[in-house]
């Protein structure tokens, strides 16, 4: 540990500055110096700087074993003015966007938020100066790692992707939109870091709104009508969430007289909280539901798939939607033991089931991934609502494993899209013959979302175990997990399936900047799953312990020992690895042993490939397609009522505050 000693001397504020501002600075350089090589170089360097900073934060937390905190001197600058100015500037930008795109919805919602923010400014004068203060506990460390490392990998992947994207659209280097694109992406990463390490709620809100604006810019990047429509929808929904956040700030300021998250968590909370405080928590939940695209606000994330794939990868895996669940996990001790917490678990569980159900009927790969993201976020929210140590541990693990696997899957989808010019999984049929390498990566990504011994599943088991005390939530988790299996298995099946006829798989060429990020995340997903138990004891348990130290009456040791962990996993890993490797290493098929398909019946060659002679000597050609059960699980049939149920559950959260 002596080697790491100097690390402890690094001020948390310095680290915070690097995490928040360095991406933005690099972004400005990318924007200003418009050459191909500078862009490649600077984005890659920015990724490295962020990654190293995140690893440093991790190392410090690991060595010091306590949460890091620091505050800038209150008198150093008119902080409250600065943060208020930032909020107003963001709102002004949103209003300008509303006027420019003639969106009454965005304009109206932004005006309401403006009113709340101004009210907060005018009435909150008695509160302390909003000096930037940093608080980094294990939950923040996990988030910083996810944002900085996975976010950087996605940014690097974006370099070749956006080049190909613009070539496809016929945009030349001179008219390239890439400088702005990478600027927004890097600012986004910095803002996410700011969001998860700030202790003052006013700063959290500021960064929260920055991510809203950045996501709007990224979603409308291609500038098509559809992109504009969907980006505006994302904007109004997230601005509406921002209204909830702002109301929460007003309520906290008026009734708890502090904006520091840590101070808030230490004030009377849970069953002892007053009605306005609980209402403020419900408002935060509302904000988190919009950000994390929970039903009925899920449509913005579905619409966001019009954006180039690196944007989707970023929004779904390491940023944006993770901000919502982070906020809930951060405040979980505050609503521990309340009825509100139970309703939250049910609301999250409902989205988990509903969107897994809708995913079954989809053929669009990005849409399936989007539904899966929404579903997993619902699961994380359900865990937060269950509010027990094991549930929180499951939530933290899901945060990590979902980010890895979903980032990987989106990036692989992007590569496939450029390879076959489609994102329809029907067109991916037999992809294993056309792009074997990408298919392998994709299959590993998919399996890592649903099979043991991968981490997502272990977290899911822990979640089910933690939900037994809330039968309704448990029922949702059980059904949702089953439905999840269905859509992933169907998709993998399409990748592997092909029609009869000779094909010779040929390994495709992948750009090095595609290959390296994909391999990094694949290795990450597998390695973290293998190391799930060290991960649990070294990372997740400390996070949950720090969380539980804040719960009155629950202080003391946190016991995460469950039957899930008592399973001889080493034996399971060993047997499974042998089963996978044995046929590859020992019993690999020789070409002469590989045979075609048994077709049964009289066969003919038709112009469309293989076929049969059928009744009355008619010829019929053969084609193989997937089942999607649209008649039963179609979006058109179910989205409306599901959204209504989800909306009434949100109303139920506020109701549970009122009737307490």
């Amino acid at each position: 540990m002596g080697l790491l000693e100097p690390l402890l001397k690094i001020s948390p504020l310095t680290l915070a500055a690097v995490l928040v501002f360095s991406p933005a600075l690099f972004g400005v350089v990318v924007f200003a110096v418009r050459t191909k090589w500078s862009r490649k170089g600077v984005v890659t360097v920015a990724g490295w700087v962020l990654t190293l900073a995140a690893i440093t934060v991790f190392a410090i937390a690991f060595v010091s074993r306590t949460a890091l905190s620091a505050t800038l001197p209150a008198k150093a600058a008119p902080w409250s003015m600065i943060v208020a100015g930032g909020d107003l500037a963001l709102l002004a930008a949103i209003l300008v966007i509303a006027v420019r795109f003639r969106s009454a919805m965005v304009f109206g919602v932004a005006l309401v938020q403006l009113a709340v923010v101004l009210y907060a400014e005018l009435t909150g004068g008695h509160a302390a100066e909003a000096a930037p203060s940093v608080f980094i506990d294990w939950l923040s460390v996990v988030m910083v790692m996810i944002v900085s490392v996975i976010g950087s990998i996605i940014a690097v992947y974006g370099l070749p992707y956006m080049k190909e994207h613009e070539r496809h659209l016929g945009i030349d280097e001179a008219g390239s939109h890439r400088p702005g694109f990478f600027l927004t992406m890097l600012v986004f990463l910095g803002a996410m870091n700011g969001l998860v390490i700030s202790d003052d709620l006013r700063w959290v809100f500021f960064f929260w709104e920055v991510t809203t604006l950045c996501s709007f810019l990224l979603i409308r990047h291609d500038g098509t009508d559809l992109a504009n429509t969907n980006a505006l929808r994302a904007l109004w929904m997230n601005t509406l969430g921002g209204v909830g956040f702002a109301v929460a700030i007003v309520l906290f300021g008026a009734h708890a007289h502090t904006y520091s998250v840590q101070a808030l968590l230490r004030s009377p909370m849970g069953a002892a909280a007053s009605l306005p405080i609980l209402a403020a928590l419900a408002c935060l939940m509302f904000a988190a539901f919009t950000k994390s695209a929970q039903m009925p606000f899920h449509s913005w994330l579905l619409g966001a798939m019009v954006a180039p794939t690196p944007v989707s990868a970023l929004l779904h895996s390491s940023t944006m939607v993770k901000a919502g669940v982070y906020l809930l996990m951060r405040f979980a001790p505050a609503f521990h033991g309340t009825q509100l917490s139970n309703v939250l678990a049910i609301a999250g569980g409902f989205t988990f089931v509903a969107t897994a159900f809708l995913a079954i009927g989809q053929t669009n790969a990005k849409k399936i991934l989007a539904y899966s993201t929404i579903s997993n976020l619902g699961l994380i929210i359900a865990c937060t609502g269950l509010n027990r140590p094991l549930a929180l541990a499951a939530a933290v693990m899901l945060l990590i494993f979902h980010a890895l696997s979903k980032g990987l899957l989106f990036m692989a989808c992007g590569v496939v899209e450029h390879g076959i010019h489609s994102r329809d999984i029907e067109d991916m049929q037999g992809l294993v013959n056309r792009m074997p390498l990408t298919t392998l990566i994709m299959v590993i990504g998919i399996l890592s979302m649903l099979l043991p011994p991968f981490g997502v599943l272990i977290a899911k088991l822990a979640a089910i175990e933690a939900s037994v005390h809330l039968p309704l939530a448990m029922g949702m988790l059980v059904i949702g997990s089953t439905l999840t299996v269905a859509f992933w298995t169907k998709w993998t099946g399409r990748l592997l399936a092909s029609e009869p006829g000779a094909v010779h798989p040929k390994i495709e060429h992948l750009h090095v900047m595609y290959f390296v990020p994909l391999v990094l995340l694949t290795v990450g997903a597998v390695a973290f799953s293998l190391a799930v138990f060290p991960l649990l004891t070294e990372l997740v348990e400390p996070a949950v312990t720090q969380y539980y130290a804040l719960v009155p009456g629950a202080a003391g040791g946190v016991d995460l020992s469950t039957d899930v962990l008592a399973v001889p996993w080493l034996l399971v890993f060993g047997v499974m690895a042998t089963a996978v490797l044995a046929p590859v290493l020992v019993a690999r098929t020789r070409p002469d042993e590989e045979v075609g398909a048994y077709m049964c019946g009289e066969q003919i060659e038709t112009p469309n490939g293989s076929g049969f002679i059928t009744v009355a000597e008619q010829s019929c050609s053969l084609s193989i397609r997937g089942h999607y059960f649209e008649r039963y699980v179609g979006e058109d049939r179910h989205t409306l009522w599901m959204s209504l149920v989800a909306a009434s559950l949100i109303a139920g959260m506020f109701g549970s505050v009122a009737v307490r």
Partner: protein
Amino acid sequence: MMAEYLTALAAVLAAPFLGGILMGLDRVVSARLQSRQGPPLVQPFYDILKLFAKRRMAANTFQMISVSVYLASMVLSLALLVMGQDLLVLLFILALGNIMLILGGFSVKSPYSQLGSQREVIVLLAYEPLLVCMVVGTYILTGSFSAASVFGLERPLALSMPAFVITQTLVMAMKLHKSPFDVSASHHAHQELVRGIYTEFSGPQMAVIELAHLYELVLLLGFIVLFWHTNLVVGIVLALACHAAVIVLDNVSARMTTRWMFGFTWSVGLALAAANLAALYATGPLPR
């Protein structure tokens, strides 16, 4: 700890013999029900040995991986059950094997196999919640998901969870591809799917699958024995009775559609499970 592993090893070694005899019995009984002489009792062993001796042919390497993982998951599940481990983990390891077999069925070019795989996904979807609900029921009674804690109960599960004896029997019929649930494959190639998901597996690969089926049968019966753990004789009789019920059901019913099967298990099956769980929540202890 060591004893646990040895017991598991013994179970893993003995299971194929037990499973083979039961499978042979199934075929003899079915034959008699159909007024046929039927094969000798040990026919399943002959079948497997014969298949192992056949020349190896494969559609691709993935197919071979899927088969070996399928077997591994069945063996592991049985070992975990005997060792008294977490039942929820066991269920997902079991599902892993099934999913790999489904993917193996997808990976070949035969339309019959692929159709079988598509339907097998629905079969999986149909029985999985019933299995998980059963395990949840044991949690309500014991406060733990481990099979070992069920061994420690004083009252047999069958008395507190009678509905789950029925659902487990249904699950057994579905997992063994028995009528009316043999939508994705059946034991005989006399349907429009040929042999469904198994169509493209041959020789040693098919032998491995048959071996895995023996483990699966023992595992499913083991679950039912768990329902009367206080007296193993009663438990085994109960398990054999359920097995007999499945065989009779197979012989008296015709294959239904996938849609019917899904609707049936998610309505009748889940209603039974939910009613029993509700009763357990109302009366049962929920420690911790």
